[in-house]
Structure formats: C-alpha cells, structure tokens
C-alpha cells in the first residue's frame, strides 16, 4: 500500500515491518515469562491480577492484533502464495478475540454439591462486599452489595474504604450515622480462630473440653452458630451435643452413648449422660470451668477447660508474604472504632443499641435457572493405595422451585455433562476431615459464548501452519 502523505507512509511501513512485529512478540514473551514466575512465587490468582489481566497485557494484545491485521492489509490484493500466512494471522486474531469474548461474556465458576443434596449457585472469581441489617435478629435486609477488588485497590488506614450506615434511623434524626471503614487488605492471611465473648443476645455458647483416660487424651471445642443451633462431635464411642434441648425433644439418637451440654448462665453448664438404648440419663448435673465429669465409658473423664455462654469466633490473622495452601484473603474492618477481621467467604456481625449488621466478603454466587442434585458419588482408587484412579458423580437436574427431576446423567473425569448451554465438569471432591470419605462433589461450571470462535480460529490457524510448512519459499534464505 502507498500513501501520499510522507508521515503516514512512514508510519505504515513501520507498522508492517518486522521492526514492529518482532518487538511485539518479544514483549509478549517477556510479559508472560514474568507471569509464570509470579505464579510460581505466588499463585495463579496473583499472576492473573498482576500480569495476564493487566493493562500491559491488553496493550500488547492490542498491538499484536493491529500488527497482524495491518500486515495482511498491506499485502492486498492477495495472491495464492499469501493464503497460508493470511490463514495463520486470521486464526490468531480469532483465537485472541474468542478468548476476549469468553472472558467478558462467559461464565466460569465452581459448583459444590453435597451427596444427596442439591445446589444451584455457581461460585465465580469476582468478589462482592455485602451488608445486611436487622432490628430483631431474625429478618435481615440487604442494604449494600457491590463488586470489590481489594487486590488492586490500595487500602490503608489513611486511605480506608468508608461506609455510613444509618439503617432504621428516623428521617430527620440528627444522630450521626454509624461509622464503618475497611482499613486493611491482606492477600495472604494465615488465620487462626479464637473464641471471645459476644454482645449478641442470640449468640451461641462455646465449650472447650478434654476427654481423657489412661490411654486417650483429646481436646475438642464445640461452638454453636447461634443460640438455637445444635452442634455436635463424635469421639470414638460417644457423641457430645451442645445446645440440644433433650428434655423437651427427647434423645437425638438413642442407639449411641450420648452427652448433652446446655448453657445455664455465665458460669454454669448443665450436663446429662446417656448410655445407649436407655431412656433415662445415668448421670446429670451442673459443671463449670475446671469441673471433671467421670463417665462409665472405659474410664473416660470429661474436663471442662473453657466455657463462654455468649460466644463468637474471632480471627487472629498473620500476614504472610506469600500464599500457601492454608492462606486466605482477609480484610480488616473497623466499626465504631472497633477492629474486626473478615475472611473471604465468611461473615462478621456487629451491633449498635438497636441494629445488628452482618458483613460478608465473598465470591459472587450466580444462580442457575435450575439446580443439580447429587445422587451418587464414587471414588475408585488404584489397587492397594489411596491414590484416586477415577471419580464419578451421578446428578439429577431439578427445576428450581418444584424439585421436579428433569434428567439424570453421569459426570466423570473427561466426561462432562451439557445442559441448557452450560457444561459441567468433574473437577474434584471434598473429603470429610476425620473419616477421609467424600462428602461433596465439586464441578466446574462453564458457559462459553466464545468457544466456537476459538475453535474456528484453531482450525484456521492449524491449517495455515501446516500449509506454510509445505509451501516452498522462493526467497534465497528460506528453502
């Protein structure tokens, strides 16, 4: 192509030359090499945020497409010996474009379905910050819900994210709104739990106890989610419940040895011990911190080590320089001057005299128009080992409200299920920490409007490459 204007002509020549093409490819190379190093030092998420989804990447990709296109345009009108090179260039552009379509219009998330239960909410990478408020502790209304990306946002005590909460304030009230700030973001947090006293009147209790005889010594903590929720643990031959009103409701499982613990007041707990298959407790009474309750089961004693009537779990967070498999993201919020840690996919509850607020920092959950019910999940191991050979799920698609089954299909490794424009892949499974048995199946869920573009691009590109290989070059250097 020729242009009359000298500057344009010069720029055109530059654009179509290797003086532009090679530096672009080289900078793409350097950029993604850096990406792989970041990923090995940190994790895939960090590499994505810092490199692959950064402005630098978009710039290089833009320049690459510009260069690929303009080189083709420059060769107009095309001759047969141009065809393979044009195919290759078009193929690459289609691949990049397809990738962009996927990223912007596709859905890529995970769906975890417990065995014999159903789930219709797909969890995706994007994170949201949500605030709920309530007067009575029962009915909550959502008062704030916004996508957040703290990774790139530089949050500090001097540059906090500020909220003014005035839920339920009378119009025209002069009292200042409640002050909520996010003052810190920790990308790689190692969090440990500790139990502290709560001001929440509906908070549950927490008991830390030791179970011991001459052979066994085990320490456990039971913490209720709230006053009305029972929590339990099974230790060998007995099950221990906290917050289950057995007097009113009867025994939970009469076929095992059971211990019921219930809060009475700030100091005292009520306990009753049941042998299996007996209706009356063989022992009951009150206990407080330091009490020892002997049992008839192999000489085991229960020693109450700590007890909080109104308890909540609080996080202690250590900031690490690099992620490990045990780290998570955490933000520190300050509500009316009091700091609290909030972990990703967890909640924090705070109170004023009148209102309770729940804040959640979580991966976005996208509802499907249907839900998946996990009928069955199977893991087979290599003989004589615990190494998984294959795992497979059997799922039933159910309509969202009526629970009506639509179809039942298997999903296994390399054998996805397609339904309603979504594809479900067997990704992994969750194990019970104690028994090691699977409890839930995890699927990757995906809807990809860019797929056909990428496949088309792949075919065009591959054809072009192979054609190029067969094409005999007329130039001196390349035979």
């Amino acid at each position, binding site marked *: 192509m020729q242009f009359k204007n000298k500057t344009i002509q010069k720029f055109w020549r530059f654009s179509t030359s*290797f003086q532009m*093409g*090679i530096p672009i*490819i*080289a900078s*793409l*190379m350097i950029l*993604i*090499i850096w*990406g*792989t*190093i970041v*990923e*090995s030092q940190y*994790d*895939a998420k960090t*590499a*994505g945020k810092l490199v*692959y989804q950064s402005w630098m990447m978009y710039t290089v990709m833009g320049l690459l497409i510009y260069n690929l296109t303009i080189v083709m345009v420059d060769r107009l009108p095309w001759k047969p010996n141009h065809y393979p090179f044009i195919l290759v260039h078009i193929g690459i552009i289609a691949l990049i474009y*397809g*990738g962009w379509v*996927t990223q912007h219009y596709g859905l*890529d998330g995970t769906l975890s379905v417990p065995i014999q239960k159903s789930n219709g909410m797909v969890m995706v990478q994007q994170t949201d910050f949500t605030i709920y408020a309530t007067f009575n502790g029962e009915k909550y209304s959502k008062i704030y819900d916004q996508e957040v990306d703290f990774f790139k946002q530089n949050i500090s005590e001097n540059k906090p994210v500020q909220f003014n909460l005035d839920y339920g304030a009378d119009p025209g009230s002069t009292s200042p709104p409640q002050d909520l700030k996010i003052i810190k973001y920790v990308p790689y947090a*190692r969090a440990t739990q500790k139990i502290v006293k709560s001001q929440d009147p509906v908070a549950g209790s927490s008991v830390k106890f030791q179970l011991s005889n001459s052979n066994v010594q085990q320490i456990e903590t039971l913490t209720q989610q709230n006053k009305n929720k029972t929590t339990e643990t099974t230790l060998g031959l007995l099950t221990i419940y906290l917050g289950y009103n057995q007097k009113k409701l009867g025994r939970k499982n009469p076929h095992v040895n059971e211990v019921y613990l219930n809060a009475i007041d700030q100091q005292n707990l009520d306990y009753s011990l049941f042998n299996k298959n007996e209706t009356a407790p063989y022992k009951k009474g009150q206990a407080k911190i330091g009490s020892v309750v002997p049992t008839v089961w192999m000489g085991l004693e229960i020693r109450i080590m700590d007890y909080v009537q109104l308890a909540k779990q609080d996080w202690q967070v250590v900031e690490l320089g690099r992620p*490990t*498999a*045990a780290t998570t993201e955490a933000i520190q919020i300050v509500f009316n001057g009091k700091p609290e840690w909030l972990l990703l996919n967890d909640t924090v509850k705070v109170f004023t005299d009148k209102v309770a607020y729940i804040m959640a920092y979580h991966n976005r959950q996208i509802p499907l128009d249907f839900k998946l019910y996990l009928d069955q999940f199977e893991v087979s*191991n*290599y*003989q*004589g*080992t615990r*190494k*998984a*050979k*294959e*795992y497979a799920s059997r799922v039933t698609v159910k309509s969202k409200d009526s629970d009506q089954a639509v179809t039942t299909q298997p999903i296994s*490794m*390399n054998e*996805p299920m397609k339904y309603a424009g979504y594809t479900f*892949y067997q*990704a992994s499974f969750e194990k019970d920490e104690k028994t090691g048995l699977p409890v839930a199946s995890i699927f*990757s*869920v*995906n809807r*990809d409007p860019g*797929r056909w573009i*990428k*496949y088309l691009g*792949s075919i065009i*590109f*591959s054809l072009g*490459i*192979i054609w190029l*290989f067969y094409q005999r*070059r007329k*130039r001196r*250097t*390349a*035979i």
Partner: protein
Amino acid sequence: MKSVLNFVFLFLVFMTTLNSTVHAATGDRLKYLPVQDGGRVKPFDSFARETLELLYGRSTFKRPTGNQSEPAYLIVMSFLLSPESWVEVPLFEVNNLEIKKYLGLNAEEKHFKGNDLFKGEKFANLIQQLNDRREAKEKLNPYFQAVQRLENQFYTFRELTAGRYIKVMPVEGSDSWLGVSALPSAQQSLFVALSQNLARYLGEMGQSGAKSEATLKAGKELDSSVDQFISSVQTVTSNKISAEVFYNDAHLFRWVYIFYLLAALILLYIWIRNSSLNMNIVWVITWIGFLLHMTGFAFRVYLAERPPVTNMYETVVWVSWGAVLFSMILEKIYKYKSILLAGLLVGVFSMVVADMAPAILDPSIQPLEAVLRSNYWLIIHVMTITISYAAFFLAFGLGDLGLVYYVIDAQKYREQIKNISTAVYRAMQIGVAFLAPGIILGGVWADYSWGRFWGWDPKETWALIVLLGYIIVLHARLVNWLQNFGMLVAGVITFNLVIMAWYGVNFVLGAGLHSYGFGAGGIEYVLIFTLAHVLFLAYAAVVRKTQEKTI
C-alpha cells in the same frame, strides 16, 4: 533391499542373544514373585529395584568391603532375614549437605548406617520440622524434599523389615493384598521355607562363590520354594510379570545408545576421512538402535497400558526417539550426513542422561493421575507437543555442530555450514508445525476436561513462549535478519526456552495444574549445560570475528 534384509537379520540375531543372556538363571525365580505395590501388580524384581533406588540410590548394591554388585532382589529380601545387621551397613544414601551437617555425618561420604541416621533426637527433630512445613501447607524447598526422602527411607525400611511392605497375597473381596507378616499359617510356613532357602543360598554364595556346585543346588531349592509359594497364594500367572522382568534385565535403552553411538562414530569417520565406506552400514546400525528404541517403548506401553509420555524420564526417551526419527527423514531428503550425525548425537546424549539419573528422571512405572486417564487425548496432545521438542532438539544439535565448523574454519567448510543452517531452519519448521497444533490440541483437551481453553497455566504458557521464540527466529530468517551464523546460534539459544518449558516448569517453577509431572533435582546440571553452551557461543562468535578480520 539387501540392506533392509541385512539389518532385519542382524536385529533378530541380536534379540535372540539378548534373550538368552538375560533369561532365567538358577536362583532368580524370586524376581518373578508378583507383589502389589504403587497401585499395580509388579514382579518382585521391579519392586526391589525401586526400593533399593530409594534407599541406596542405585538398583544394585555394593558392599563397602567387596567390589561385587549384588542384585536388588536378593538384597531387599535379605532385609527381612536380618534387619538388625542391615542397620549396621552403610545402606542409606544421603546427598544433602545441610542434612549431613545437621546429623553430624561425614560430608564426603554418600551412604550411611541406619543406626547413625535414625537413632537419636536429631532425626526426630528433622521429621518434626518437616511436619510443621506440611501443617502450614507450604511448598517444600530442596532441603525439605531431602528430609522427605530421608523420612521415606526410614519408613520404607521399617515397614519392609516388619513384613508389611511386601504385599504378596491377593485377598478375595478386597483390593489390598496381604503383607508377608499377615499371611495365613499355611502360606506363612511356605514363606519361612523360602526365607530359609534364601539364607542358605546367600550363605553358599558368600562361601563358595556364585558358580559353585553347592550354590547352584541351593539356588534350585530356592527357586522351587518360590514356585511353591507363588502357587499357594494365587492361581493366575501373568505374562506381564515375566515381560517386566525381561524388560528390567535386558536394559534395552542402554543398547539403544550404544548403537546410536556406534553409528555416529562410523558416520563421523566416513565424513571426516571422506572414506569410501558405504553409508549403508551407518543406516543399518542406526535402524537397529531405532528399532530397539521402539521395542523398549512397546514394552512400556504393554506394561503400563498407556502411552509412555507421562513423566520426565518417559518424555526424554520419547523426544530422543523423535529427534532421531526427524534426522533420519531429513537425512534421506538432503543427504548432508551432518543431519543424521546431529540426530544420533542428540539421541546418544539424551538416552545416556535418561539412563544415568534415575533419582531425577524416575524410570519406574507409576499409576496415572485421574485427570490423565484419557489415553486418546494424552497421545494426541502430549505426544504432538513433545515431538516438537524433538525437532527443536535436533535443531540445537545441528546448531552445535555448525558452530564447531565455525570454530575450526568457516571458510573451508562454507558449504557444510550453509547446509547445516538450512537443516536448522527445516528442523525448526517441523517443530513449529507440531508445536502450534499441539498447543491448540492441549487447549481443546483442557476445554473438554477442565472447561477452559486457555488458562495461563505455566506449562501451557511456556509452550506458547517456546512457540513465540521460534516464530521470531523463523520470521527473522525470512527477512534475512539471520544469516548462517545467526541461524546456528538461534538453534542453540532458542532451545533454552524448550529446556525451560520441558524441564524448568516441572522442576524449577513447580506451579500450576500440570503438577502430575513435577519432580526435583538436577538443576545444577542443567545450568552447567546451559552455561557451557553460552560460553561456547561466545567463543564461536569471537573466532568468527577474528576470522573475518584476517580475510
């Protein structure tokens, strides 16, 4: 036609001799005892070799006093006979200097006694440190990887001597076999008889030598007690067991590099001396090596029931096969001789590396990760990508060869240099023609089984980096930025990207979804290899400059 017949004949003769030399000697029935280990049933021979590899670092054992190598199957079984004497023998290999220093061991020694290693608080402290690491779910650095091996050695030896580790008897209704210590009494007594016979056999061997009458007699008794034991625990016999023992003993891949080396030397002689010797002889020897290469492959496919491209060792073997194949094809077309030479040298080099470093390139056959259990895609995607590495490896070998000419005399060997740089260009083209579709097929597989076409996973990203690197070179050649010298240099330099994609991602970066191929070790050798080439390039460049000045 005649040469083809010739080499088929030679090949058959070779295979028969090999077969007769490795086939059953007295006292070795124990090798064929089927055991369950690592998710499959294997001959005791393989089990013993792998175990000794872990404990001792080699598949044969050499006593500190003697100079004879003893086979793994006798050594490992004798652990059961007298565990207490084996902890007084320097059996356990420790390489990590830091660990040696911490345990107060002599840094210059390689093997240590169990009693010096595992008794005492320091070992317990090391294990505690390791467990803390695991608790925190942190990545293990080379030091802790070494501690992990030590822990592994300790537990393996303990479980072995306790009779729990050698699982010899299938149980109906369970997929886990019984260990030696848990056998029912009938089988137990047969196993005791086996052990006694083994002790007698070893004793005779020590006293009167391996070839003596008494040893042979004891060997026969041992064999029959092994057979009795085998028939008492299971009825089915498998051809696979004997095939695997043959595979272990024959060591086909060693013969492969011997033949390649032989072919390369003869070729070099013909070429340098301009000898009238017929090229056919080179071709015949190359073909024998090549067919042995394929035979070894066929064995692995038969034993593992999958394409053998799932770990570093297997890909090294596969890539060197590809490099030889491409060099043979290009040689047939261009008849430069240099192409076949480069291919053979690459083949020798990589097969020797694969053979020499079992601790880094693990030759044992391991079960596949669940996600890889799709042979069709495994073949298509992994094999196309790695075969492109073979072409790039060939380009690298050619580049090296061409640079040697530059160093000797660029003027005199002008023709050869031009030919070689053309061959480098061709080899790179082959590589790109396989790599680009291979990456795309990887995307298709990932899309099909993980649900995304491209995810910037380090392994796939590095494959792309390799592709971009070679594309830059090919384009630069196209517009004449790279002349002959530049092409040769590019053949060598760009291969570093392949090394990174192939070895580096798994062994250095160690991140990402392709974690099933991860390993450790060898980085110092790879660095030396790379640095040596950089120095060589610099030297060649200097020589070239001076040559230009003198003209």
